[in-house]
């Protein structure tokens, strides 16, 4: 692996696998068509605003609050998903029990369900007069129509991302590694903390990144449960839609551009950490 880094910029390497030129051509054109052209349109539109206009629009209090809510709730939801997603994946990989296949299939439901349906269902549950909401209201806990409700919705849509990225890596963990730790005197807790979790870190990070990215962009499920109070529970994607409906295109593009920049920066950082840990630990033992 180290030998290959030297030839990083050597564009064409002799290879037994043919079609490099063609494959790369298809890849690049596809990426340009699907991702780059729409995004550069966005960049072009926002650059047409001029720097000072852009800045005023981007730092508008309502916009900043919406961005903070979007990224904050997505981050929290991704954290929650990492913790429970890892446990869920562990149970699915390690134990055999009746109904396992059903649970395994259930994990994918948030992928398939229209997010609006999920949003409505969650709202019905957590609203002050809903099944769960009515139990919590006496204690003064409000979930629906607050940022907590947004986190709940994002946890729902993000769960499969964590489970499905961590699961295959867990399946690869050799039982012998755990046994080795045990023979060296490690108890269960030490084995999990010192041996198993560090090995899973890259996969967990990927799952986190995916769940987070999904959460930032989520719209359908959130708008039902969030209540959409400006400055309090209004997410950035909704604010973009509102601006569009007001025919305020400059403001919409500015918010979109900021979201894009922050998301891209965060994903880039996460990917870098991942590449680093992967280089270090390598694939296969």
């Amino acid at each position, binding site marked *: 692996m180290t030998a290959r880094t030297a030839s990083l910029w050597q564009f064409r390497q002799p290879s037994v696998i043919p079609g490099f030129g063609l494959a790369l051509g298809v890849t690049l054109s596809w990426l340009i068509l699907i991702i780059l052209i729409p995004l550069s349109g966005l960049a072009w539109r926002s650059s047409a605003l001029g720097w000072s206009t852009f800045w005023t629009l981007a730092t508008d209090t309502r916009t900043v609050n919406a961005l903070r809510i979007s990224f904050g709730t997505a981050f929290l939801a991704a954290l929650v998903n990492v913790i429970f997603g890892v446990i869920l994946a562990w149970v699915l990989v390690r134990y055999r029990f009746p109904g396992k296949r059903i649970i395994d299939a259930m994990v994918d439901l948030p992928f398939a369900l229209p997010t609006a349906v999920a949003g409505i269902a969650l709202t019905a549950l957590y609203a002050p007069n809903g099944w769960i909401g009515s139990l919590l209201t006496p204690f003064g806990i409000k979930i629906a129509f607050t940022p907590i409700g947004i986190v709940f919705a994002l946890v729902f849509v993000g769960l499969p991302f964590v489970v499905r990225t961590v699961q295959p890596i867990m399946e690869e963990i*050799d039982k*012998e*590694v755990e*046994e*080795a*730790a*045990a*023979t*060296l*005197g*490690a*108890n269960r807790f*030490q084995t999990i903390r*010192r*041996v198993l979790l*560090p*090995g899973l*870190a890259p996969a967990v990070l990927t799952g986190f990144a995916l769940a987070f990215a999904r959460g930032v962009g989520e719209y359908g499920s959130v708008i039902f449960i969030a209540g959409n109070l400006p400055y309090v529970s209004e997410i950035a994607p909704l604010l973009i839609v509102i601006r569009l409906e007001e025919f305020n295109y400059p403001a919409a593009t500015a918010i979109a551009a900021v979201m894009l920049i922050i998301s891209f920066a965060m994903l880039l950082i996460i990917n870098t950490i991942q590449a680093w*840990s992967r280089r*270090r*630990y*390598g*694939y*296969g*033992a």
Partner: protein
Amino acid sequence: MEVRVQNIRKEFSRFPALNDVSLDIRSGELIALLGPSGSGKTTLLRLIAGLESPTDGTVYFGNEDASRKTVQQRNIGFVFQHYALFRHMTVLDNVSFGLTIRPASRRPAKAEIRKRALELLDLVQLTGLEKRYPAQLSGGQRQRVALARAMAVEPNVLLLDEPFGALDAQVRKELRRWLREIHDRTGHTTVFVTHDQDEALELADRVVVMSKGKIEQIGTPDEIYDTPNSPFVFGFIGQSNILPVKVENGQLVLDGQPIGVSAQGEKDGPAQLYFRPHDIELLDGASGISGTVTVTRRVAGTRHVELDVSAAKSKVEIELPPEKVTSDHSRLSFRPTRWKLFRETA
């Protein structure tokens, strides 16, 4: 430390993997568990380690009953066939792992742990590689890290499960010699599992031959090779030939013809004659066992000759000095110089 296995039985969902096995391992001994796959050798090793619990029977470490203890409490060193290294840890961290997880009261100081790990890396000849990750090492190096890691906890007994099974022939040979050296230097009681008879015979002080969940024979490599006590051991260890013979008046008879081998003290009756390809002498004339040459092969320093022994309707293989050139379809006569008889009922 002395390890005693007493009347161990192990069943996996009603299928017996070990059947009433008893074994005394002396302190400081290097002992091999040898057998084909499915013979229960790995199960026995894992039972000693505490990675499996016996259905019946007891394991003693010294005079202490270890059967009730968990793996963690037994303080053993275990080396796996596929290394089972912690791949997110450096070589040094792998080796120190067993010491760093001890409760504070029994944990040596940090500097002391590091010193001990470096000493062990020196012992396994990996000095200078302590900062590498397992992925950056060759198979042979990984297995040496695994051994150093197992020895770091000062184990009561060192258990190796096919330690060289995943390595190529050259490295295997080298590591084999090297393991013997390490053992002689450190004196750990060591049990290793192998299906490779050369490995067992070359390396071990004593060899335990196992088959179908039972111990067939325990003995020094010489005893196992020279005086196998069952047809299984004879057939499993080294090359062997089998011919159906009869004992008549203290003589061995093949298809009505005496073969010039006296078997004084053996009862009359049918028996199986076992002998090794190299334990033979060629005879002139038609006495002894005669057969037609079907194939000859030159293998290193000897010539292997396959003979069709029509009298027994079976084939035997003998080893001759390379100067002895035989042509196909020529006839050869020979007689075994060392052999063993096994009766059908045995």
